[in-house]
């Protein structure tokens, strides 16, 4: 039975205005769904409801805004449905752009910080270890829980904003220590160091782990390299696309997993699965749906490209030029573009002929013209969703493969590490 505090009840009764009342009424019904005994405080939120899909998402946002809704905790905003400054360069219709912009405005009126990024953990609103937060956006949820050790349930669109407005969440699931224990063990077996050092490795591993984990918390053991933050970002995004991973532990890498004992909180794994090179090769092959060498566009940045990723890209493209038949697009955030500009990283990328889209991505905004049929990417998330959402064919490869292909105007991949012997 759900126990509410006086403050919760005053929101539910409407004493604090109609917006907290609406948000709390949804939250209370969801607390019942989750089987929560009480609600608890959060100190930060990330709102994925910002993504414009159609009239319903817009009506929901404008209804809350018109009721005078204000977020009660610092709240970052996920991608929107439009790059407000750049959409005219693409196939976005003026009607879509106008409605998506209205939805952005509604969340800004509620007090959400206009970060407009799916990588909020790479802004100054990054939460800290142990912090109780309510985050939407599957990749961000997995990253915040696993890599930072902040605590959020897997919050969906439309609920994240209710948590932000009330500052409350059901006291359940990943907010609580006992539900953060690993449930299944995935052990790398004889996976060569060279493969683990490849820049595709963590995205491919994440894709595989997502498909294997089902609804359980996976623990990955025997990773022998120390992944960079952007590699863990790629892993989290891949595992939360192919699967429903909201928390993973990587032994010796993530903060709640110094040891197997710690990751499983002293319990035994429900299941142990070996991951071999053969399975990783098969998982990588699943990320490619194109079979030829045709290439219309290279797309990077799902989740949004970071300054570190832009800094890796810059020397690869410096002094080169993208093939005239191919588009090269990087999706990123306002903040990262500004930082890249300030550090001089942006100039060689622009000179190469790359375009940058901000605030959104090719999956959240209908920006690709119909003649773009074949994509190449180093993002497992783009590779996972593009075939279904955009009806395009896709090739997955390394960052260097993507750059080389863009220059040559056809798909070229260095397969030396990934080919079957």
């Amino acid at each position, binding site marked *: 039975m759900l126990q509410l505090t006086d403050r919760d009840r005053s929101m539910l009764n409407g004493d604090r205005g109609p917006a907290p009342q*609406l948000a709390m*009424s*949804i939250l209370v*019904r*969801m607390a019942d*769904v*989750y*089987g929560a005994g009480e609600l608890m405080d959060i100190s930060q939120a990330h709102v*994925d*409801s910002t*993504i414009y*899909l*159609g*009239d*319903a*998402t817009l*009506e*929901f946002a404008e*209804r809350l805004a018109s009721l005078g809704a204000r977020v009660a905790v610092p709240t970052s905003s996920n991608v929107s449905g439009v790059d407000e400054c750049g959409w005219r360069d693409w196939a976005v219709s003026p009607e879509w752009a106008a409605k998506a912009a209205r939805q952005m405005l509604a969340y800004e009126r509620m007090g959400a910080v206009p970060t407009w990024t799916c990588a909020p953990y790479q802004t100054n609103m990054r939460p800290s270890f142990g912090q109780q937060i309510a985050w*939407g*956006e*599957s990749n961000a*949820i997995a990253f915040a829980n696993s890599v930072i050790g902040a605590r959020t*349930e*897997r*919050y*969906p*669109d*439309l*609920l*994240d904003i209710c948590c932000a407005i009330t500052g409350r969440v059901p006291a359940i699931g990943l907010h609580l220590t006992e539900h953060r224990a690993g449930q299944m063990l995935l052990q790398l077996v004889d996976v060569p160091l060279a493969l683990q050092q490849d820049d595709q490795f963590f995205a491919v591993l994440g894709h595989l782990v*997502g498909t294997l984990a*089902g*609804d359980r918390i996976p623990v990955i053991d025997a990773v022998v390299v120390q992944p960079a933050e952007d590699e863990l970002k790629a892993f989290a995004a891949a595992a*939360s*696309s*192919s*699967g*429903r991973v909201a928390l993973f532990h990587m032994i010796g890498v993530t903060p709640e997993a110094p040891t197997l004992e710690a990751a499983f909180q002293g319990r035994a794994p429900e299941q142990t699965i070996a991951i071999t090179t053969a399975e990783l090769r098969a998982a990588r092959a*699943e990320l490619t*749906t194109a079979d030829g060498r045709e290439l219309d566009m290279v797309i990077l940045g799902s989740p949004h490209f970071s300054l570190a990723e832009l800094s890796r890209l810059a020397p690869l493209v410096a002094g080169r030029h993208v093939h005239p038949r191919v588009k090269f697009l990087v999706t990123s955030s306002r903040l990262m573009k500004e930082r890249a500009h300030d550090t001089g990283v942006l100039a060689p990328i622009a000179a190469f002929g790359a375009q940058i889209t901000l605030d959104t991505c090719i*999956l959240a905004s209908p920006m690709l013209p119909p003649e773009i049929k074949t994509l190449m990417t180093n993002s497992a998330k783009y590779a*996972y*969703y593009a*075939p*279904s*959402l955009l009806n395009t064919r896709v090739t997955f490869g390394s960052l260097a493969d993507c750059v080389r292909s863009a220059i040559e105007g056809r798909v070229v991949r260095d397969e030396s590490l990934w080919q079957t012997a």
Partner: protein
Amino acid sequence: MIAGRAVVAGEAEGEALVTSDALSFWGGYDFHTGEIIDKRHPLAGVRAAGRILAVPFSKGSSTTTAVLLEAVRAGTAPAAILTTGVDSFFALASIVADVMYGKSFPVIALEAADFALLRSGERLVVERSGLIRTK
């Protein structure tokens, strides 16, 4: 007859569409047509609008809920969703659809063994109590 937990209570009747593979509605469901569009999913190309969709749980994108809300508004949502265990995403979509449009769909959680008894093509009736029977 199967007794499920009415996570969101309601009545529905329709043809069962059953899969053992989890589904993300974002990138997986076209709310304009009510069709499952995830090319990696066994039900790709099948229209789920108005049917009783049995899917073990949601996966992938947080935007699954928003796609379902759009589908309710457009009249292209499944008539009910049956899951194994409680799926908060499907429940939320139904609750917000009720708040926004006065239209919700039943979301029923089943034991895995009961879920395994369901067959595509059966005509099912979902009762307010969470009881599911064939017609």
